[in-house]
């Protein structure tokens, strides 16, 4: 349940952004969940539910999984993250700190750990919708 801390981040960021944009009541929060972080969507949704604040009371949460897209800086190979053949310890390390991918994963073509995570690193607030005071 460290998902809780990540959900808190989403809520507080959404609240800040809403404030900046003059949004009084948030109606929708769209969250991207990077595959590398390997988060159970149910647990994450549960945490978000618990963290509702007055201006988020009726917001609809939508989670979208984002595939982990990795690109090797040495040979240019591009591939997709998968935790299928990963032992539990490794999987958990990347779950907590996605950058640990560089410790445990190598480029399937040249075996370098010097790759870029193009997409699907972690949790991102993709967008919010809401109602402004004057509308």
């Amino acid at each position, binding site marked *: *349940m*460290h998902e809780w*801390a*990540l959900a808190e981040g989403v809520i507080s960021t959404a609240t800040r952004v809403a404030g900046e944009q003059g949004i009084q009541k948030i109606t929708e929060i769209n969250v991207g969940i990077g595959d590398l972080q390997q988060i159970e969507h149910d647990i994450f949704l549960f945490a978000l539910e618990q963290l509702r604040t007055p201006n988020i009371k009726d917001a609809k949460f939508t989670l979208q999984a984002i595939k982990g897209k990795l690109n090797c800086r040495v040979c240019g190979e591009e591939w997709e993250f998968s935790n299928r053949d990963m032992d539990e310890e490794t999987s958990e390390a990347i779950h907590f700190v996605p950058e*640990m991918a560089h410790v445990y994963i190598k480029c399937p073509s040249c075996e370098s*750990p*010097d790759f870029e995570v193009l997409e699907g690193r*972690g949790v991102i607030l993709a967008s919010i919708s809401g109602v402004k005071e004057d509308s």
Partner: protein
Amino acid sequence: MASALAIRLKEQGQNVGLLDLDFTSPSSHVILGIEGLYPEEEYGIIPPMAHGLRYMSITFYSQDKPAPLRGADISDAIIELLAITRWGNLDYLIVDMPPGIGDATLDMIRLIERIRFLVVCTPSKVAYETVRKQIKLLHELNIPTIGIIENMVMKPTTYVSERAGEDNTTYLGSINYDPMLEDALGNVELLKKTEFYGSIRDLTEKIC
């Protein structure tokens, strides 16, 4: 230095956290002999207690493997760790920083409001040259420095203390090279008996 300082503050009855941010060369787990500990997951992660300290290190996740992280990765990993770690109530959070002025230093300056720097320097022209640049940057950014501590001193010189004065930084004193320290690594009880730790005790008196 960072590890011993944290241990000493704890000994004085403070609530202390120790965060090792030197991801390519983490060393505090070796110095403190930390083994078999792992953070608890509860609304975030809770750093385990080690010798009375709340202790957090990337080695919980990277184990003893190389962590070939680029600057941007270090930056992301630090932000992730800061976001998920629940330190609880602390009087001090001691952060062992990697050398230089890279992503880790710039991010901590950017993100931690009440940060203060304790600058460690060896008694060498070459080492001071680097330290001078760090101090200059911190001064320019109005980041408080506690001062400079000279470590690994073999024979007394005034080079660093004089430069510190010129650069408007408090010279906090010197710590001798301690040939016994190596054998005490990994054992906190032995560590506390070293001359090195005695110097850390004096240092703590000065700065807290």
